[in-house]
């Protein structure tokens, strides 16, 4: 098992390298932040920018070299640098927002805010998907089944940004109605709140409810349809019939015999749900005014800030790959036929 995990972790490295190279090229080629900044300065001062300023800008952002060189220096930090770049040395590179905006600091302070939301949403959506799928399968062709199936289709068709806007305004209305603030609809925590990890977490809960709900409803539908199909297949299989024939109680058959096998295909969808929630977090964070990673990446995209976009790509890639790894391990736990030697 340990060998399996180590091998899979090593296999992530080429995938991450490929993904970052592709992203770096695609984000970097069409953007020219130096030119944008020069244009900005010209607009504000009304004078042409001296060549020395342009050179200084290019040097500080490493735009005085070619894309392959820039990628290499971003990755390793080996070569002629200002000492602020080199991923392998723990430096994320300069942000074009200036030295006040340290990418490493921004990423680490925002990481937990986003991860909290994404993890809650993923777990909640998988849980509700299993529940809805199993109920649908057990009560096949009943009213409950039809209603759940239709709801699944409906949420599959609903864009997260619309659902998010609707729920946000709905929560505001509900707060007004109840005269309380059970649901916080702006920000990810009380501004300026200080405390240890647990206190910060408790403080953030009212802010988490609505965005988590939105991401959960946006992500559960696809999985629940697979859960229903796989549960139906298992329920019609011979060994479940045998268990029934032996006289095992219905609840036990469902729980012990059917559900456990029916969960296996759903493990495939856990990483998909995770990457869906990462994408959805970009949307919900911008709607609910969170200062999380998703919003950071959006700002970086709008500014053409290559190194900041790359930081997001890398982190989201690592999170998704860890999700894939966990789902592979889950396979082994759920399916006795699979053994990791």
């Amino acid at each position, binding site marked *: 098992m340990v060998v399996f995990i180590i091998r899979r972790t090593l296999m992530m490295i080429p*995938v991450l390298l490929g993904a970052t190279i592709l992203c770096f090229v695609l*984000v970097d080629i069409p953007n020219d932040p130096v030119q944008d900044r020069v244009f900005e300065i010209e607009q504000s001062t009304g004078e042409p920018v001296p060549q020395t300023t342009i050179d200084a800008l290019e040097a500080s952002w490493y735009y005085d070299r070619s894309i392959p060189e820039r990628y290499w220096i971003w990755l390793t930090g080996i070569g002629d640098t200002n000492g602020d770049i080199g991923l392998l040395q723990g430096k994320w590179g300069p942000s074009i927002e200036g030295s006040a905006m340290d990418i490493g600091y921004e990423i680490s302070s925002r990481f937990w805010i986003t991860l909290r939301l994404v993890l809650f949403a993923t777990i909640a959506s998988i849980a509700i998907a299993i529940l809805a799928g199993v109920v649908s399968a057990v009560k096949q062709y009943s009213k409950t089944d039809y209603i759940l199936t239709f709801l699944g289709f409906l949420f599959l068709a609903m864009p997260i940004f619309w659902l998010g806007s609707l729920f946000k305004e*709905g929560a505001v209305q509900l707060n007004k109605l109840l005269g309380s603030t059970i649901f916080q609809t702006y920000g990810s925590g009380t501004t300026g709140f200080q405390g240890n990890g647990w206190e910060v977490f408790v403080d953030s809960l009212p802010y988490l409810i609505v965005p988590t709900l939105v991401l959960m409803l946006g992500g559960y539908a696809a999985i629940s349809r697979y859960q229903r199909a796989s549960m139906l297949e298992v329920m019609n299989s011979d060994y479940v019939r045998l268990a029934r024939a032996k006289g095992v109680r219905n609840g036990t058959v469902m729980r012990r015999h059917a559900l456990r096998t029916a969960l296996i295909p759903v493990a495939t969808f856990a990483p998909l749900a995770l990457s869906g929630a990462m994408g959805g977090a*970009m*949307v919900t964070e911008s709607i609910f005014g969170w200062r999380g990673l998703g919003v950071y990446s959006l700002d970086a995209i709008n500014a*053409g800030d290559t190194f900041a*976009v790359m930081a997001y790509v890398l982190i989201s890639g690592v999170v998704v*790959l860890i999700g894939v790894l966990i789902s592979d391990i889950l396979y082994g736990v759920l399916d006795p036929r699979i053994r990791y030697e």
Partner: protein
Amino acid sequence: MSNTASPRLDAEAITTKERGQWEMVGRRFFRHRAAVVSTVIFVLIILFAYVGPLLWKWDYKIHSEIPSWAAPSLAHPFGTDKAGRDMLGAMMQATKQSLNVALVVAIGSTVIGALYGAVAGFYRGWVDSVLMRFLDIMFVIPFLVITGALAGAIDTSVRWYHMAIILAVFGWTSIARAVRAEVLSLREKEFIEAARSAGGSDWHIITKHLIPNTMSVIIVSATLQIAFAILSETTLSFLGLGIQSPDTSLGLLIEAAGASAFNEHWYLFYIPGVMIILIALTINFIGDGMRDAMDPRQTMVRR
């Protein structure tokens, strides 16, 4: 047949009609009630978007004679927005642009994905390994970030065809996976061996034998791709990384409606939202109906 045969043989005559493959598929599809209703609604939406602007007097632009923030009425069935735009005209244009994107993405990404998946499945070995590793890379790259970054980097104002190309170039991976899985089993069949022994080239086998035989998978994926494209395009437009004004899109309309879900301008928020949901919902039902209709294992009996 019966008029040439003697009356005695009438009882033995085959009474079932011969039906072609597509006729069977059509009959099965029409049995799927939700899919048929969805098809009708989807056709109506297409008419609304493409024929509607020819019939309705207002377009999607701002006109000085249109009152600002008028509630839905006979003159403006979907109301007007703050700047003085007729929302019915704006909805027609927005739906048209979103559908344009969706249809081009569906076709483009399906062609890329089907070829990619067929080549990977057909050659297997190291070609397959390389192609599949590339798919892994595509899976790891955050879709909204890369498409948003490319759309955001377009210097001129972003048009629908920019969005269509960007989404098609990054949206084909699920189709490639589905087609590859199908081709992996098809390539072992006898008729492929026959084609090869008759001297068919690889390209001939892929395009003339493998892809036509995966058509059911491809058509279903292409249909679902429309829903995927609509949702991606509107999301990017909502985030300000997609279609930009003066043009309009369903995502932009919702973004402009802002926090009006529960105030007197509710119609600005709900109408475009319901339109997106209707398109994606009907497409999903149609895809579902097609999957049932084209599945050769389908037995006509509900399981």
